[in-house]
C-alpha cells in the first residue's frame, strides 16, 4: 500500500485536469460555433422559403401566360368583354370559342387558373390581386396579377394570344 501511495500524484491529477481542459475547450468551441451554426441554419431556412416561393411564382407565371395565350379573339371581334364575378376574372374566347371563358380565381387559399370546370391550383400565395392588362385606351388585352410568395412581391402581366382589331376613327 505504501508503494502504491508513493506513486507520483501527477498521474491521476493530470487526467482530471486534462479532462477539465478538454471539456472547457469543447464548451468554448461549442459556444463559438453556435452563432455560426444557428445563422447557417437560419440562412438555410430562408433559402428554402425563397426557393419554394420562386418555384411557386414560376408555376403561377407559366400557368397564367399559358392560359392567356389560349384566349384568342377573332380579328373581327370588336373587343374582349371581361367579367369579374366575385374573386375571379373571366375572359371569353378561350381556344377561340366565344362562350368558353378562361378563369383565374382566388379563393383565399389557392389560385385557380384554367377553364371553369378544370382549373389548375397554385397554393402558397398571399395578397393576390386580380386585374386586367389594358392598353392606353382601356381595352382589355390580357391578365395582370400581383401576389406575394416566399416573402417577395411578384407581378405577372400576360397578354392574350390575339387582340381584337383596334378601333379606328369612324369605326362603330
Amino acid at each position: 500500500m505504501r508503494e502504491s501511495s508513493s506513486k507520483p500524484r501527477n498521474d491521476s491529477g493530470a487526467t482530471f485536469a486534462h479532462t477539465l481542459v478538454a471539456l472547457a475547450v469543447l464548451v468554448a468551441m461549442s459556444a463559438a460555433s453556435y452563432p455560426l451554426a444557428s445563422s447557417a441554419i437560419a440562412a438555410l431556412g430562408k433559402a428554402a422559403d425563397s426557393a419554394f416561393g420562386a418555384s411557386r411564382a414560376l408555376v403561377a407565371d407559366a400557368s397564367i401566360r399559358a392560359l392567356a395565350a389560349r384566349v384568342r379573339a377573332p380579328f373581327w371581334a370588336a373587343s374582349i368583354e371581361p367579367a369579374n364575378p366575385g374573386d375571379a376574372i373571366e375572359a371569353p374566347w378561350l381556344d377561340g370559342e366565344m362562350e368558353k371563358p378562361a378563369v383565374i380565381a382566388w379563393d383565399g387559399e389557392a389560385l385557380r387558373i384554367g377553364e371553369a370546370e378544370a382549373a389548375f391550383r397554385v397554393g402558397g400565395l398571399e395578397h393576390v390581386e386580380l386585374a386586367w392588362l389594358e392598353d392606353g385606351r382601356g381595352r382589355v388585352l390580357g391578365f395582370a396579377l400581383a401576389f406575394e410568395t416566399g416573402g417577395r412581391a411578384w407581378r405577372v402581366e400576360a397578354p392574350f394570344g390575339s387582340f381584337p382589331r383596334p378601333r379606328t376613327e369612324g369605326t362603330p
Partner: protein
Amino acid sequence: MRTSRRTDSGWIEADAAVALVIIALAAAGAAESGFAAARAARDLVARTQNLIALGNDHARVLVEAAE
C-alpha cells in the same frame, strides 16, 4: 477512455487536438453548405425575377404595338 498511463505520454492532448480539428472542420463544412444553399436560392430567385420581368416587358411591347 484513456488510462492515466497514456496521459503521461501526451496522447490525450494529441487525440483531443485531432478531435477538435475534426469538429471544427465539420462545423465549417456544415456552415459552408448552408451558405452555399442560401446563395443557390438567391440565384434562383434572381433568375425567376429576371424571367418574369422579361415576360412582362414582352407583354408591354405587344400591348403598345396593338394600340
